[in-house]
Structures are given as structure tokens and as C-alpha cells.
């Protein structure tokens, strides 16, 4: 069975039109075996054979390309193709073939119309760009985009070139470089689509439109494209070499700022797009294929695909995940209007959830409300929502000092101070009033969920939900089941996290859970380097250049040194020697240097500026006098290797299900550079025996940490973390 159906018909009354050998329309219907209409190798093969049969049809008025699926036109190319690509020459040839095949779609003796209803991403949009015209259906499910750069490649089936030639360089870059998924309206406005129709009875409207347009040979559509490209600015910028040069320079600056030169894909995509704006079509396509063949066979793209697959697992859920659902009428009650509480509230409101925010202190409540108002009003100011949407969003928020609003609650989330007795008393106050369908989520970063739920009559519905600060920006949520937590409650917590647009990762209820436990060794290692005489600002700079969002000392200042000391002490008492810290941090806390919140920490903070705190006396270790000359590579290893060891322990103890989820958690929770594929993927690629060697050497030089047996075993057997997963 071919996954492309070629049907001649006189109408269009369903996903698969009725056959009529004398009909005016030739339907090319995409109906892949996969639910999301994935563009796999077999789909491409089927398309090739189907296209050869188009010429058999005489007397047709137009070719109509559409999908048989309700919510998808095409969700993009099969990741398998990217993962298995290892020979640049093969990739080059393959891409050239597909580029030409998509080009054929727009080169029949009659015009071809691609009707896009639902998701149309990556290769799917590239296919659509090959047709002579596109019609988008304005339904909320319709999303168009070229997300290839996020996977470390560029649109290589002709998309980069055809997009640039269709809408001009500037607009094309906004599609190609961001990978954004645009709604139908934006696609129509920018000229990627030539027409937009309403979702109700879209097949009839499309046919009506095509009937008019195909007769006038697409004149109206091409006129519209010309109009969109006209205008002084467009002519100057997109139409002259000087203007294009300027755009490309600015775009490159923007890319470098974002990626620090670590990711080649956006830069290459920019190069191909700039080239496509002026050169000959075949030469441009050739360049596109050449660049993607280099990118797709490199390790960065493989790493990004690895992360993407894991993030999809977190976002959509595994079959093995506990099941539970979040109903649209469920509201969220947030206890505590501090940074975390109001952060979660503001995200939930924007995702359409009704929220009641409660704080026993009016001062704190006021601060929280004003934070939420600022967050949401800002989205209105940036035109991300209309005035009515803003008012509607804010109207879903209620607040007060008393505990109310439980009747419709699906979850009560507590974000009160991190003290066991307080958390337990909050739970005790509430337990008799908690509705049957609701879970009690505790946003703790250090306390044991099992202890919090102990003795509560609703213990089975208590679950840890650890958000990261700042909540609107941090995509990770650790979901922590306590010993008595029921699978349904975990399922509901996962569903809530997904409803809030976050990536939930289940972590075992053990000290520091996952992310803090793995991250702390990195901070401890940084302090050790500092005590050995390496300048702190240099360590931060090296870490940043490695791709981390900020260096260890900057991070400690952001988090607050007092919080850092607390986490370190919890972990030290739980895991012993390997979390041993010097007095440096606690001395600083005693001096009132708490980091950014007190203005002084490792840095002196003035507004957004920060300079190294010169008053900080560091008792340097004299026998390591030469460590100041350590290479950047050495510093990076010294910082990251202890994390690999701790991660290995977490895997062995079952703190997290597998290495892929651990990699995802570290990227989403700490900003570990994604192009490295995650903490453990990176370690795998370096070779575990090298990591082990360095850890042993570091132990010899004074690090209390010894590599764990699991890591030693893995390294000695020559295995990697990601084997078989």
C-alpha cells in the first residue's frame, strides 16, 4: 500500500476523495503509516513512484496535495534518517534527490495546491514549499515551522532555499533561524501561504478557491507575493547585495550572542539562505545539500536529536509512566506567594488554569500579585496577547489570606518556607478539606516527601513537585513520589506539569533529588579550584565558554549562598565525605555576603553589572602554587567529572529511570550545554576511562570524592552510559 494516494476526483468530500476518472482534480493524499504523517524513507520512496504516475492524467485542472490525517499535514522528517546518517556523500545525494522531487511538485503542467490543515513542520513544510501554492487552514492546530536548527541541522530538502526565494531574506531568516512554530495567520501574513481559509468545511472552501485561482493561472497569488515583497525597505534590504550583506551581518551577531559560536547549524543556515537570495536555483540547492550533509553527520546534530527524543518522552509521557489526567475544570490552589508560588501561579494562568493564591502575609501576597501582574501585562505589551486575553487571564486569578477555593481544586501546591514542621502543619490543616480528586503537591527542593506525607490521612495523594527558579524560564520539573504516594497521584502531577508546559522528570525521594544532588559537586569543585589559586572570574569565564549559561560562582550568587550552604549540608549529612566543603562559603554567609540578594557574594552586584568581589580573602593552598596556570580544558574537566560520578551513583540507586532522562534533567534544570548531548552522553563521548583516570588523580590531589564502583566497572568493561538505551 502506497502511503501517497493519487486519486482523480470531481469533488473533495472527505480525507480520501471519491474516485472519478473524469474529474477535474488530481488529489495527492498523504496517508503515512505513522499517526503524525512522519516523512520516512519509505514515504519518500512511495512519493517518488506516485509522482511518475501524475503525467498519466490528462485534462485535469489542478493537483491538490493534502493529508488524510485530521491533526497533521506532516510532522517532519523521520529522526531515524538523521540518526543513521553517517556518510556525507550519501546524504548529499539523497538530499539532492528529495530537493528535486519536491521541486517536481511545482512543475506539473497544471498548478499544484498544497492544503495545510494541522501540524506542518520541517520536511513537511519543505514539501509544501515545493508546490506552486499553499493554502492554510486557520485552525488552532495548524502550526508551520522549520525547526531543523534546533536539531543541529538546516532545512535540507530545499526548504532553506525555497523559503528565502519565496518571502525574501529577512522574513525567511525569522523562520529558518528560530525554528519557531507559526500559526496559520502568521504564515499567511508573511506570504508563506498564499491563502487562508476557515476550518469549518475547509475542503469545500479550498476547492472553491482553487477553482478560481487555477483558471487565472495563479496570477492573483503571484501578484500577492509581489506585493508582499514590494515597499521601500523590502527592496533596499532584500533586493540589494548591500542590504543582504547587512542583514546577514546582523543575524550572525544575533546567532553568536545566543550560541557563543558553539552551534554551527544556524550559521550555516544563514550562509545558505544569503546565498539563495541571489544565486542560481540549482547551485543554491547544491550548497544547501552540501552543508546539511556535513552537519547531519557531525556529533552535535546527533546529540541534539538524542536530547530532543528524551524531551519528547518527558513531554508526551512514556507508556510505562503512571497514568493520571488533569481536567480543564481543575483549578490550582497555590499556598505561599513567594518567588516560587507566584512564579507557578503566573505560568498556570497563562496556560489557562484557574489559580487561587494564598499567603498568610498580606505583604508577601501583594508582592506575589504584583509579580504576576507584571509577567502577564508584559505579554500584552509585547503583543503576545490581546487586551481581552490579558483581562481574561488575570480574571482567572483569585487570592486572599484564608484557605479557600478547594471545591474546584485539582491540585493544592504548597510553596511555603522550607521547614518540615511548617510543611507538615500546612498539610494537616488541609487534609480534611482536600477534595477527592485533588493532589497535594509540595514544592520542596530538599525535604523528604516521604517524611512530609507520614501520618497524613491523604498520604497517598501527596507528591513532590520541584520547580526551578525562575519558574517561567526553567522548563524542568522534578516529580517526586513519596513511599506512600499512589501512581494515580504521580500521574496527575505529571499531567499538571505538562499542562504548565514543563518537562517533568520523575526522581526518587532521596536527598537533593536529582538535579541539586548532581549539580552540587560542580559547585564544590569550583570552590576547590578557587582555593587552589585559580582566579574565580577565570573559572566562570571558562565555564561560560564551555557553553554553560553562567559560571559556578555567578550561579551561587544567583541562588544565594545561604541556600547553597543549606543544600551542601543536607547532602553532606546524607552522603558523607564526598560532599565535604571548605569553610569558605559558610564564612561568607556569616559576613552577610549572600550573593545577589544582598548585593555582595563572590561578586559585587550593581544593578545588572557584577564585578569580582576583591574583599574576598582566599586562603590559598601554597603547595599547589602552580594551579593558577591550569588550562581551560583542565578546569572544565575538574568541574564536570565529579558530576559524572554523582550521576553514575544516581543511576545505580535508581534516582532517575535512565541516562537519557538524567541528561535531559541536567540540560533543562541547569542549562548544561545541549550540543554536548547531556552530561552522560558527553562523558560517553570522551570515554569513561579518561573520566575515571582524572577522577582518581583529583582524589590524589585532595578531592574527598572517590569514583563509585559502578563507574569503575562501566569504564573497565569499556561500556558507556547510553549503551542499549
Amino acid at each position, binding site marked *: 500500500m502506497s502511503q501517497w494516494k493519487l486519486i482523480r476526483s470531481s469533488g473533495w468530500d472527505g480525507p480520501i476523495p471519491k474516485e472519478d476518472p473524469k474529474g477535474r482534480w488530481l488529489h495527492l493524499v498523504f496517508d503515512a503509516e505513522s499517526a503524525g504523517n512522519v516523512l520516512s524513507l519509505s514515504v519518500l520512496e512511495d512519493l517518488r513512484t506516485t509522482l511518475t504516475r501524475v503525467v498519466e492524467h490528462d485534462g485535469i485542472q489542478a493537483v491538490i496535495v493534502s493529508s488524510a490525517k485530521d491533526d497533521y499535514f506532516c510532522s517532519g522528517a523521520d529522526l531515524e534518517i538523521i540518526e543513521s546518517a553517517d556518510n556525507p556523500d550519501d546524504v548529499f545525494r539523497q538530499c539532492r534527490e528529495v530537493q528535486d522531487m519536491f521541486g517536481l511538485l511545482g512543475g506539473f503542467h497544471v498548478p499544484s495546491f498544497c492544503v495545510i490543515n494541522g501540524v506542518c513542520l520541517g520536511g513537511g513544510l519543505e514539501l509544501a514549499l515545493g508546490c506552486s501554492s499553499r493554502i492554510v487552514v486557520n485552525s488552532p492546530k495548524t502550526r508551520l515551522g522549520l525547526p531543523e536548527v534546533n536539531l543541529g541541522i538546516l532545512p535540507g530538502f530545499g526548504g532553506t532555499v525555497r523559503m528565502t526565494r519565496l518571502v525574501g531574506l529577512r522574513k525567511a531568516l525569522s523562520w529558518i533561524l528560530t525554528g519557531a512554530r507559526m500559526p496559520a495567520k502568521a504564515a499567511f501574513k508573511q506570504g508563506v501561504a498564499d491563502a487562508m481559509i476557515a476550518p469549518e468545511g475547509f475542503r469545500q472552501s479550498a476547492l472553491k478557491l482553487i477553482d478560481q485561482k487555477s483558471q487565472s493561472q495563479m496570477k492573483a497569488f503571484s501578484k500577492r507575493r509581489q506585493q508582499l515583497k514590494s515597499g521601500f525597505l523590502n527592496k533596499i534590504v532584500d533586493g540589494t547585495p548591500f542590504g543582504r550583506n547587512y542583514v546577514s551581518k546582523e543575524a550572525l551577531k544575533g546567532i553568536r550572542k545566543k550560541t557563543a559560536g558553539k552551534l554551527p547549524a544556524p550559521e550555516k543556515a544563514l550562509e545558505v539562505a544569503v546565498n539563495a537570495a541571489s544565486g542560481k536555483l540549482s547551485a543554491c540547492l547544491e550548497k544547501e545539500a552540501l552543508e546539511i550533509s556535513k552537519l547531519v553527520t557531525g556529533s552535535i546534530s546527533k546529540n541534539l536529536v538524542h536530547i530532543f527524543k528524551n524531551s519528547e518522552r518527558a513531554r508526551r509521557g512514556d507508556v510505562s509512566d503512571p497514568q493520571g489526567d488533569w481536567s480543564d475544570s481543575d483549578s490550582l490552589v497555590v499556598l505561599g506567594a513567594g518567588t516560587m508560588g507566584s512564579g507557578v501561579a503566573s505560568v498556570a494562568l497563562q496556560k489557562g488554569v484557574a489559580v487561587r493564591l494564598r499567603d498568610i502575609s498580606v505583604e508577601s*501576597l501583594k508582592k506575589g500579585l504584583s509579580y504576576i501582574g507584571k509577567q502577564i501585562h508584559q505579554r500584552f505589551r509585547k503583543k503576545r496577547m490581546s487586551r481581552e486575553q490579558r483581562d*481574561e487571564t488575570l480574571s482567572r486569578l483569585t487570592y*486572599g489570606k484564608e484557605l479557600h477555593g478547594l471545591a474546584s481544586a485539582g491540585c493544592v501546591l504548597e510553596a511555603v518556607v522550607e521547614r518540615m514542621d511548617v510543611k507538615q502543619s500546612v498539610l494537616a490543616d488541609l487534609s480534611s478539606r482536600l477534595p477527592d480528586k485533588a493532589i497535594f503537591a509540595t514544592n520542596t527542593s530538599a525535604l523528604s516527601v516521604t517524611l512530609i506525607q507520614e501520618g497524613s490521612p491523604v498520604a497517598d495523594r501527596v507528591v513532590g513537585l520541584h520547580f526551578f527558579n525562575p519558574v517561567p524560564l526553567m522548563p524542568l520539573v522534578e516529580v517526586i513520589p513519596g513511599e506512600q504516594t499512589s501512581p494515580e497521584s504521580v500521574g496527575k502531577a505529571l499531567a499538571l506539569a505538562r499542562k504548565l508546559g514543563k518537562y517533568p522528570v520523575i526522581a526518587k525521594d532521596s536527598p537533593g533529588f536529582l538535579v541539586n544532588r548532581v549539580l552540587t559537586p560542580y559547585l564544590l569543585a569550583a570552590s576547590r579550584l578557587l582555593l587552589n589559586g585559580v582566579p574565580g572570574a577565570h573559572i566562570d569565564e571558562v565555564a561560560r565558554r564551555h557553553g554553560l549559561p553562567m559560571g559556578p560562582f555567578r550561579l551561587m550568587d544567583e541562588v544565594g549562598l545561604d541556600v547553597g550552604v543549606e543544600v551542601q549540608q543536607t547532602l553532606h549529612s546524607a552522603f558523607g565525605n564526598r560532599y565535604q566543603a571548605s569553610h569558605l562559603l559558610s564564612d561568607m554567609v556569616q559576613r552577610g555576603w549572600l550573593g545577589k540578594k544582598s548585593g555582595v557574594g563572590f561578586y559585587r552586584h550593581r544593578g545588572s553589572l557584577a564585578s569580582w568581589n576583591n574583599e574576598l580573602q582566599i586562603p590559598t593552598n601554597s603547595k599547589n602554587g602552580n594551579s593558577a596556570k591550569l588550562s581551560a580544558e583542565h578546569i572544565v574537566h575538574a568541574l564536570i567529572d565529579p558530576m559524572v560520578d554523582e550521576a553514575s551513583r544516581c543511576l545505580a540507586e535508581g534516582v532517575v529511570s535512565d541516562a537519557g532522562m538524567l541528561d535531559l534533567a541536567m540540560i533543562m534544570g541547569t542549562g548544561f550545554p545541549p550540543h554536548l548531548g547531556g552530561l552522560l552522553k558527553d562523558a560517553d563521548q570522551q570515554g569513561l576511562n579518561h573520566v575515571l583516570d582524572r577522577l582518581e588523580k583529583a582524589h590524589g590531589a585532595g578531592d574527598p570524592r572517590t569514583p563509585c564502583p559502578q563507574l569503575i566497572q562501566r569504564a573497565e568493561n569499556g561500556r558507556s552510559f547510553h549503551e542499549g538505551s
Partner: protein
Amino acid sequence: MSDSVVIVAGRRTPFVRAGEDLREVPVDVLATACSRDLLDVSGVDPSEVSELILGCCAQPPDRANPARVVSLRSGLPLSSPAHTVARNCASGMQAIVSGELRVARDKDAVILAGGAESMSRIPLLFPTSFGFKLASLSKTKTLSEKISGWLKFKWSDLKPRIGLLEGLRDPFSGEMMGDTAERLAREWNISRESQDQYSIESHRRAIAARQDLQNEISAFSIPPHMDQYLTEDIGPREKMDPAKIGRMKPYFDRKMGTVTVANSCGITDGAAMVLLMREERAKALGLQPLARIVKSDFVGCDPLRMGLGPVHAMAKVLANTDLTVADLECVELNEAFAAQVLACQEALSSTSYSRKAGFATTPGAIPEDKLNPEGGAIALGHPVGASGARIALSLARKLHSNGGGYGIATMCIGGGQGGAVLLEGVSS
């Protein structure tokens, strides 16, 4: 009597003088905040609510049915209908009475009823002649037609009418509401001093009751910035200097009058909502009612003496229940003007007025300590659409904490009407 209609709970926003903190807040936002908080506080799941009825006097031009907007934004089910009612100053009371009738008919109905008004946002109006000329101009085709169309405009076409003042004018006589109060003061011989005295007392009581009023007020954080947090009415004044108030110029009748800004109700923004259902239904939902609605009615009177509406409404309600003023624990009589309240007191105890009006008996004046014990609209303010709901809610709350007893919430209505709701407190 066992399954009568009850007020289960109610909330209102802080009342704020028009043109101040709430002037940017549309009326539906006020009512939504109030409804959402009421649902939260009462513990009623929004999906239980069968209809929302909102009283609103000056409906905003972009909200043809503000009740529906409030209903959807409060998270009520799509299938629950909503309608807006208007009976001038008693729109909020009308909403409650409409809700009562609905619940009386349908034993399972749960009704959110109340009123809201944003007097700050009543728009300026252009004369209709302006609109007609614009309309005919848009039909012109040739240049000369267009020019002559433009030339037809006169300055008088552009003179705006202030919507707020238009609303406070009696359409029959063209008198302002204040003028009708002046008439009552003259007829019943109510002195400037007694009016001022009454107003000062209203403020004193409102200030003294601040703590109790917290039981009906929902704190309101002003959108969209949410950086201002209101918990109390901005109206009651701590210090009222009798000398200063005595020196104020009369507002409506500059030369001979006695009605001043200080002894009239303030122009105010605010909303108040209550939850209505049958007593049995409340029991089934595990809710504690505040008060039963025993009787409610509206009655017409002379538009030029609209301030006496409460006298007629009270007489009618009492006559239908065999109760007397002496049986009442508390009366909430909306204070449009001090002169009007005092004239009501006089009329209630006047046998000749009762005879002329055809009452069966003379009702008798309300004892001072039972009349508006927590202050009234002179101190708190009078957001016209909301006040009727506020006094009913206040009364229900007081009767409940009193452990039972009867009480009446009553008000005068511009255009010559009176409304009254007779409640019986439900003890917990």
C-alpha cells in the same frame, strides 16, 4: 417554610469613589473578581451554578450583556445562561429578586446574583444629530455632496452630554435626584443640621464596623498591574468636622438648599454578589445559609418624591407578612441622601401620610439603633447597580450573626419606585 430560598453567602469588592483607584477597571472585571472569590469562599463548585444574574444600571457600550461576560470569565459552565437586569438604583436588588423567583420555581437551581457599577466609566455621549450627520456623510458620493455634508455640522452637534449626569436625572420632570431630595427636605421640614448630623453618624458607624465589614469584602488587586491591593472601602472618614461640613455649599439648590455633597451618597465603583438556592439544596451541598428570603416586592410612587419609595415598599412587604416594624431586628435603608432617609422616617410614623397612601396601618419609624447599624451609602458610597445587593448581603450577614430574627433591606429608586426584601436570619 422549610424549603425557602436562602442567601448562602455573599461577597463584595471594596467600594471606591468614582474617578479614583478603580477608574480603569471595567464593570465586568469588578463583578468577575467578586463572583470568583465568592465561589472560592463559599466552597461551591462553579459547575453547580445554574445561572448568573447581574444588575447593572449603566451598561458599558461594549458589553451588551455584561452578565454573560462575568459568567464565562468566572468559570461557570458554558451551558449556564446569564442575563443582566436594570431597575435603576435597585438593579442589584432586582437581580436578587429575579434569582429568588427562579429558585422558587426550580428547587435545584443555584443562582449567582448581584450588581456591579463602574460610575467612573460611564461614557460621554455625542448628540444623536452628530451620528445622523456622520451616517449621511458616509453615503455621499460626489465631492460637492461631501462638502455640503461637512458643512451641515454645527458646534452644537459636538457638545457632549455627560452620561453620568443624564443617568441621575429624572426623565419626566428633568430634575436631578438631588432636587427631589431637596423637595422632601422642604416638605418634611428637615433641617440642614439634622442632615449633617445623620451623615456624621453614618461615617462613625462605618468606621466602627470596619472589622465586621471585612466579612463581606473581598480584597481586590487592581488589574492589569496587580500592584495595588485594596481591602477596605475608600469612603468612610475617620474624622468629620461638624463645623467644616456645616460650611459646605448646597450642591443642587445653591441658594436655598440644604443637600450638600457631604450629606449625600458618594458616586462610587464596586460590585456585590450573593449565592441563592433552596435551603434543602444548601444542606445537600453542606453549606450554612445566612438568611431566608421571606418576602420581596417593588412598588411605584411619585417620581418627584422618589426618596419615599422605601416607605411604600416596606408597608407593602410588612402588610403581606403580618409583621410590624417592631418585629424587625435591623433595617438597611439605602442612604441616597440624608434628607431622604430622615423624610422616610417621618413618613413612616405619619398617620396622615399612611392614610393618604392607603396603608392599612401606620408602620412607625425605625428605631435609630436598628437603622443602618454599620453605616450606609453616605459613608460607603452608592455604586448604583451594586447597592441593592450590598444592603441585602449586609443585612443577611447581620441577621445570621444575630442568630436569627427579621430584617428588611429597602431602597428608593430613581423614577419613583421603592424596593424591599424581607429576610429572616438563619442561625448556625
